[in-house]
């Protein structure tokens, strides 16, 4: 998961206005029936769905070519390209355009089996050579969506295609998280090689895949209109005739647009608004748990946090439950480690974890002769709320805290690259801790965004990522969680949620029932989405 996403000045003002307005809407609102998931009914064919996107999801300026678009547009790419694999609602890896995978016993070779008879939207075959072409292309792109930063190097054998429906990846060393990386990278979205060659630069505006929908029009970062691809491999699917993605300036206007009926679905992230939507009888809200919890990163390379006592004081002075319950309506799930509830190896409780204890915090601060901390974060609504809460909580323990909300991504990056930062409030983790923005991103000695420089921990992370045995990996990550806790490297807070919100007439996993946020963003199953006719 990337650092907290920046928000503009007007986004913050809008959030304040939205909070006030929420009271108005609540006052004028309908019933108070609590709504849960909405899965039932026989799918009906036809209809048009307008899905609202905002924040980082609303930026597809780099285009929709899976090899250059970046992480954010995966919600669109799922619709256009479908996926080789996706996460099932229960978090298992489910083959879609692939039919399965096999990891060799030594963990160095992965065999992907592909579905036969599938055609891209331009009529060309989806086969092993197309997939191999895509993977080779993805490994050389500058996009952070490339698996190149997580996967080990390919061996001299590279990528082979024994037949039309089999692709074999030969790695130079074992890597247990290979498929976890694949499903969160560009490799999961296979483009038509013929269309790429034919369309050139225009491909990213009107891409061609083998997914359930094909592009009709694309006004970059404003509106993307798709229509059903009749040649989709699942007979009778997708159900929708038309799928539109519309950019909107935040949760409150998105919520109101849904109430007005101009949009049928979208993802809400503002806790107060999620609660309000749950109480609205015309909407269905499914809570999608995060894979990435909030963490207070401490820079152990410089004072004051090169002293373990100072780090312990922060652990004891921090009360995540008070923030979770009183500030975020109890929507968020507590954790004491680096994976959110929707991720692999989720460890909510870590033995020996230092929980809130004001007396101990005060004693440690006194022992240190006082503690002054500079804490920074992004300036999105949740970050700024947390910054203030932490400043207040820590002041009770005698910790003097300066808080700073950095206005954009570049400033946050500069904080880390400057190496002079003391404490940062960020998100950590991914679906699989080994994947790109996962555990190493925040804890590896050599990582730019890490405040920890511990070779033992580096070795533990490398071993856990290489392991091919899932139960063994679970134990290894539990050990890592304990190691981080024992050394008081970084207190963890809780994982945020996204409220998948839709009108009652809408149905589909990821729209009205929860599916894991593999890439940190909503991932509805577009091929299964449908709208009940009035």
């Amino acid at each position, binding site marked *: 998961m990337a650092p907290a996403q920046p928000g503009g000045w007007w986004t913050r003002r809008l959030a304040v206005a939205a909070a006030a*307005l929420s009271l108005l809407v609540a006052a004028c609102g309908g019933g108070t029936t609590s709504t849960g998931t909405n899965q039932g009914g026989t799918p009906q064919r036809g209809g048009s769905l307008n899905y609202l996107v905002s924040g980082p999801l609303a930026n597809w300026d780099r285009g929709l070519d899976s090899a250059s678009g970046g992480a954010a547009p995966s919600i669109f790419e799922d619709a256009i390209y479908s996926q080789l694999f996706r996460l099932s609602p229960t978090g298992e890896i489910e083959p879609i355009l692939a039919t399965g995978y096999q990891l060799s016993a030594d963990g160095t070779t992965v065999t992907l089996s592909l579905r036969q008879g599938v055609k891209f939207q331009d009529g060309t075959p989806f086969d092993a050579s197309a997939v191999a072409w895509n993977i080779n292309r993805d490994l050389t792109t500058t996009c*952070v969506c490339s698996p190149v930063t997580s996967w080990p190097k390919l061996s001299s054998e590279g990528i082979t295609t024994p037949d039309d429906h089999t692709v074999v990846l030969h790695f130079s060393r074992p890597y247990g998280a290979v498929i976890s990386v694949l499903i969160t990278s560009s490799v999961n979205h296979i483009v038509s090689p013929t269309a790429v060659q034919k369309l050139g*630069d225009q491909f990213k505006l009107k891409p061609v895949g083998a997914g359930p929908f094909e592009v009709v029009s694309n006004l970059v970062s404003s509106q993307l209109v798709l229509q059903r691809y009749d040649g989709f491999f699942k007979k009778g699917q997708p159900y929708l005739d038309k799928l539109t993605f519309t950019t909107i300036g935040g949760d409150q*206007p998105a919520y109101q647009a849904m109430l007005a009926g101009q949009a049928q679905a979208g993802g809400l992230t503002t806790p107060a608004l999620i609660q309000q939507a749950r109480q609205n009888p015309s909407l269905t809200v499914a809570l999608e748990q995060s894979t990435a919890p909030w963490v207070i990163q401490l820079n152990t390379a410089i004072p004051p946090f090169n002293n373990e006592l100072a780090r312990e004081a922060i652990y004891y002075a921090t009360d995540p439950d008070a923030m979770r319950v009183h500030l975020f309506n109890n929507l968020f799930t507590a954790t004491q480690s680096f994976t959110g509830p929707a991720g692999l190896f989720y460890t909510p409780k870590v033995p020996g974890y230092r929980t809130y204890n004001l007396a101990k915090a005060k004693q440690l601060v006194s022992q240190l002769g006082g503690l002054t901390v500079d804490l920074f974060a992004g300036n999105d609504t949740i970050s700024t709320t947390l910054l203030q809460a932490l400043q207040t909580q820590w002041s009770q323990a005698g910790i003097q805290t300066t808080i700073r909300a950095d206005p*954009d*991504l*570049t400033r946050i990056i500069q904080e880390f690259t400057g190496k002079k930062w003391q404490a940062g409030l960020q998100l950590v983790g991914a679906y699989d801790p080994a994947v790109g*923005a996962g555990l190493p991103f925040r804890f590896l000695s050599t990582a730019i965004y890490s405040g920890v420089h511990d070779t033992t921990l580096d070795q533990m992370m490398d071993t856990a990522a290489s392991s091919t045995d899932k139960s063994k990996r679970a134990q290894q990550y539990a050990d890592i969680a304990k190691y981080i806790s024992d050394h008081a490297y970084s207190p963890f807070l809780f994982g945020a949620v996204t409220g998948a919100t839709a009108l009652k007439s809408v149905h589909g996993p990821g729209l009205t029932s929860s599916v894991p946020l593999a890439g940190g963003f909503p991932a509805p199953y577009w091929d299964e989405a449908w709208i009940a006719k009035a």
Partner: protein
Amino acid sequence: MTATASVAVSADRLTRRVAWLATSPSLRLAARRLLIAVPVLWGVSALTFVVMSVLPGNAAQQLLGAQATPAQVHQLELQLGLDKPAWLRYGDWLGGVVTGNLGKSIASGQSVTAIIGLRLPVTLELVVYALVVSLALAVPVALLAAHRPGGLADRLSMGISMAGLSVANYVLALVLVIVLAVYLPVFPAIGFVPLGEDVGANLRSLTLPALAIGLPLAGFYTRLLRADIADQMQEDYVVTARAKGVGPWQVLVRHALRNSLFGLLTIVGVNLGTLIGATVIIEQIFALPGIGQAFIQAINNRDVPLIEAIVLVLASAVVLANLLTDILYAVLDPRIRYGQRPD
């Protein structure tokens, strides 16, 4: 008449027409203002470039995000030409502008002219609609208020206009959607229908955004106009008109209002920049695919060619609006002849 003679007559007419135009005060004013606009616009573009250059980070870093390695960022910088010195990049861009080429968006690779061409009509229509809404409300309300200063209509209109002035347009936008799109589904909450597709639907899609921008402006204009009309009503010419038996509404509309419109025109012209600025936020709330939406994304992406082009277009719009205002002065008041001393 022979063909040669006919051509000679036409040429003569053309020469006389050009000579007449050259002596036209309004045209001379327009030409002078347009010439002055050139360094103004250059200054705006240079300042924008400097600001974007001193901001931390660049397009490569913004586009790749936090997970990008320094090597990936460097590679993209090379691809995008961001390794060149800033002055050279600005020079390249400016050279393109002079030849009518606004360049390509760093982020999307699309022609900037095409992006602006797609989006500018939406924003322009919104600006014009908001202006019409604000003036259509302000003028009659101000007249009503000034008709009997201190009366019920005056107090009520001043109270409402003060309330309108005090509410930020993005808050008003959300309230308007709740009232006029959710509870009374009269207008759509989001979206845009092009004018060429369906005129009625187009106006409906822009009504709430135009109200969100236009209502606070109407409050401002109402107060301004009402105060000016009240002043005018104390002038001698009004007393004279009344003494001649001209009715109170006629005095108000035909005499006082006409003179007060100068002040209003000035403020409208000056305010155009604010009006355009408001569209940036309002377009986000109402999901309008205008230039403001592209502007926000361009700033997020540090997409300098697109930012520069948008700033240039908006600055040109403000310059042109001010020029138009000055020309309108002449239209409204025959005494005013630019370049001539009024007798």
